[in-house]
């Protein structure tokens, strides 16, 4: 690979590039989808190719191809330079890359069992067994389970002298029971987070027990009372808080958004550059970290797609916004000397852009369990899992539902409620954070398919937290009749 990579870099340099890099990538996916007592899809996919980035006269160019051959690499490297030349006609500020040492290194996900080496029969058998267990529960109409296993092998080389090989493996199980009854239908999913793990993730869970529980809760949800609007304290479990953090903090603190680079598509951010170091984002309990090093998290890697070594940095410290997510070409806009290592491309054919690393909430320092937090809450709602989600293009106004929601009355978990969501403004919401459980209760959750960019790219990242409480949040009802 090194020889092919050097050929691309030499070609780009000889054509006039001041900087170039190449990523040669092979992706492998296995997808098993079971509906009820049958397997609907068993698929195995592979995707191999390379992309070359070049800077000419301070402008980026990119070209890619699936033919990983010497002549094609030369052609594509020359094309990346040509495209950069076209871009440089409309240049406002030349690209400047924050310095980064050259690395010759290898990195791989710390997995225990390669999921691709586990016999397919075994995986199929478990998918069917989970569905079967769900269908045993009266009132379950449909059971759906899928397992996705994904490997990203990447070889990165740059004219700065880096040659880095990485092999990342992900496991994403998802299982949902659909209950139907009395003119209603509700779903409930097994709550197991996707992680950068091998088949050991699947084996660490008692799926049969969880399938039965999810199915029973789906049926309970059909029978549950409608949620009522009003102001209420909410306790959010890590399985739920994951997505709220992703949308209201993760995307809002992306520097490319703050600079307007996403204005035509995903939007900009209310966290404008003048707010760095000043904005009171939330209560003093709010400590948010950007992190490419968190073990087993979805956004973890040895290096990002700029070739920057993985690191950890503060985004929000004691409620104050202190740091953006950056890449090598973004760092200078906030006077940073180094990138925070947040470049990612979802394919060899995609241009690396600023993508969220793992963005997670630090646990509370004082010992606090979920049970203690619930018993300390007179009246409220407990949210588990992800439901409906929507947020505006500057990340102010959001609305989130849950996979399951229960009432809390006089310090105890009560009845389930359905068709309910909370709606708030980002800084009001995080300002109402008044309790975060301690580290024993911290869980590593994540988002597997986050879209951004034009052309759109999909990324994955971790959002761990401990159960947390927010006071007097606006609750909206999603019930009603047609």
């Amino acid at each position, binding site marked *: 690979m090194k020889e092919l990579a050097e050929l691309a870099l030499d070609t780009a340099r000889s054509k006039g590039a001041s900087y170039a890099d190449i990523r040669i990538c092979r992706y492998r996916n296995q997808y098993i989808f079971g509906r009820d007592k*049958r397997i*609907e899809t*068993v*698929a*195995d*996919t*592979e995707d191999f*190719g390379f992309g070359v980035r070049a800077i000419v006269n301070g*402008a*980026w*160019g*990119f*070209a*890619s191809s*699936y033919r990983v051959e010497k002549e094609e690499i030369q052609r594509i490297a020359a094309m*990346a330079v040509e*495209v950069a030349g*076209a*871009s440089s*006609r*409309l*240049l*406002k500020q030349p690209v400047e890359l924050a310095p980064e040492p050259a690395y010759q290194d290898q990195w791989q996900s710390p997995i225990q069992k390669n999921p691709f080496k586990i*016999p*397919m*029969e075994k995986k*199929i058998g478990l998918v*069917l067994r989970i569905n079967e267990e769900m269908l045993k529960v009266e009132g379950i109409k449909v059971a759906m389970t899928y397992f996705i296993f994904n490997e990203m092998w990447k070889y990165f080389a740059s004219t700065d002298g880096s040659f880095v090989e990485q092999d990342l493996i992900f496991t994403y199980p998802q299982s949902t029971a659909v209950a*139907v*009854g009395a*003119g209603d*239908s509700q779903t409930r999913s097994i709550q197991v987070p996707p992680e950068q793990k091998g088949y050991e993730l699947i084996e660490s869970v008692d799926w049969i027990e969880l399938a039965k529980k999810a199915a029973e809760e789906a049926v309970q949800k059909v029978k549950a009372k409608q949620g009522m609007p009003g102001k209420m304290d909410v306790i959010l479990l890590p399985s739920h808080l994951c997505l709220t953090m992703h949308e209201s903090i993760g995307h809002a603190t992306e520097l490319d958004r703050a*600079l*307007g*680079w*996403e*204005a*035509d598509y995903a*939007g*900009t951010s*209310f966290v404008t550059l003048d707010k760095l170091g000043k904005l009171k984002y939330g209560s003093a309990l709010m400590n948010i970290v950007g992190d490419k090093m968190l073990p087993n998290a979805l956004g973890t890697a040895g290096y990002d797609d700029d070739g920057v070594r993985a690191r950890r940095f503060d985004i929000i410290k004691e409620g104050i916004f202190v740091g953006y997510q950056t890449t090598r070409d973004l760092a200078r806009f906030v006077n940073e000397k180094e990138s925070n290592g947040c470049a990612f491309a979802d394919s060899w*054919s*995609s241009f690396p852009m600023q993508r969220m690393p793992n963005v997670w909430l630090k646990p509370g320092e004082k010992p606090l369990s979920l049970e203690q937090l619930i018993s300390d809450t007179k009246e409220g709602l407990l949210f588990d899992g992800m439901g*409906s989600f*929507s*947020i*505006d*293009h*500057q990340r*102010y*106004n959001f*609305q989130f*539902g849950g996979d399951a929601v229960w009432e809390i009355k006089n310090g105890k978990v009560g009845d389930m409620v359905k*068709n309910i969501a909370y*709606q708030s403004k980002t800084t009001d919401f995080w300002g109402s954070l008044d309790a975060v459980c301690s580290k024993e209760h911290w869980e590593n959750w994540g988002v597997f398919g986050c879209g951004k960019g*034009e052309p759109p790219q999909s990324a994955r990242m971790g959002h761990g937290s401990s159960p947390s409480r927010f006071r007097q949040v606006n609750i*909206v009802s*999603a019930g*009603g009749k*047609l």
Partner: protein
Amino acid sequence: MTIDEKETISLLQNIISENPGKDMGIGVSGRETGSTRFANNAITTNGVYNGLDLYVEVTKGKKRGIAVINELNREKIKEAVARADALADVAPENPELMPALGPQTYPKVPTLFYKSTTEFSPGQRVDSIISAIDKGKKEKLTSAGFFETSSSFSAYLNSKGLSYYLLATRSYFSNTFRSSEEGSGWASAEEENVERVAVGKLAEDAVRKAIDSRNPRPLPAGKYTVILEPAAVADMVWYLLYNFTAREADEGRSFLSLPDGKNRLGEALVSPKVNIWSDPALPEIPAFPLGEDGLPQEKTVWIEKGVIKNLIYTRFWAEKMGKAPVSFPANIIMGGENHRLEDLIRSTEKGLLVSRFWYIRDLNPMILLLTGLTRDGTFLIEKGKVSHPVNNFRFNESPVNVLKNVEMISQPKRAVGGETGQSAFVPALKIKEFNFSSVSDAV
């Protein structure tokens, strides 16, 4: 990346003939894309992207395995066939698996392939972008946007003789202009022929919206008469049809469900003013005439005078329910009336003009309740005139209610949904009692 029809079909035939006696289907698709992105009045990324996939499915009775690769050498192809074959061996029987189709006859549709689009160069994209940016600069606006042109092909052959080869080009231009006085405007277009992408007009439209939406005044949430521009209507209608599946309705888990496993097919669901259909042959928004598994697809009426005329029936569900299969919509067309957008505004005593929606998600599938937000220009209409810009809103509303509450319809045009990113040939709609649930501070 495109391979010509003869070469592609010959590649597929070779694979089939090298595996005699196998029930298999082979697909190959490729694309070549050039795209340029700009922001803050300058280009941010510019690239050329190639892709190719070979899809192999092997079926053994009611068992099927699938493998996908993108390396077209003999060894890899052989490996992919072996992999799909092995997966078919271990896959349990799927009683819902329908047999592969034999040769089909497809209706004629207008071409979706334009040489002008394939020949459009990075330099031409940059020229267009410069012209758009200049229009904004003159008004002291900051621009961002995206221009993409692509060509693609898709071919399929199975051992029963079903075969097709599809060739298409696509051009997509989108631009957003933002003002330092809290204004924002957006316009976009998708066309097969790049020559029909009117960059100058799209830039002018977005610039005008950015100027008109400056300094929005506060307005509380609540129920308002709204005029939805075609981009907002495209999203609403697409969301409706995403959920037009008979199976979910029959299984009791959709807004189209009725007791005892029945559904609302034949019911007057929305206003009699509403007519929605798909037609791959419509020149303004042509589509491939292919549906599920390669079934031919002709004009399909979904809603006629407010009555549901068709639901999506997969081949399996259709057979089970004794119906003919109806594939997912090839495109969306909504009938209009002889009015212009200006006529809808003129007829409105008090209401809101909505340019587009953003971040739409399901809230409750049993009533098809959706949530989402307005973006890039929301205006108060008073006494038949656009009075002034107002803040953005979140809505919690169902497209069923939207189409029930239609009061007036403009002539349709091709528009791209701001959320779905999908084109539709739809009018602007005047709707009463549209539910905005909260205010958004976003500009």
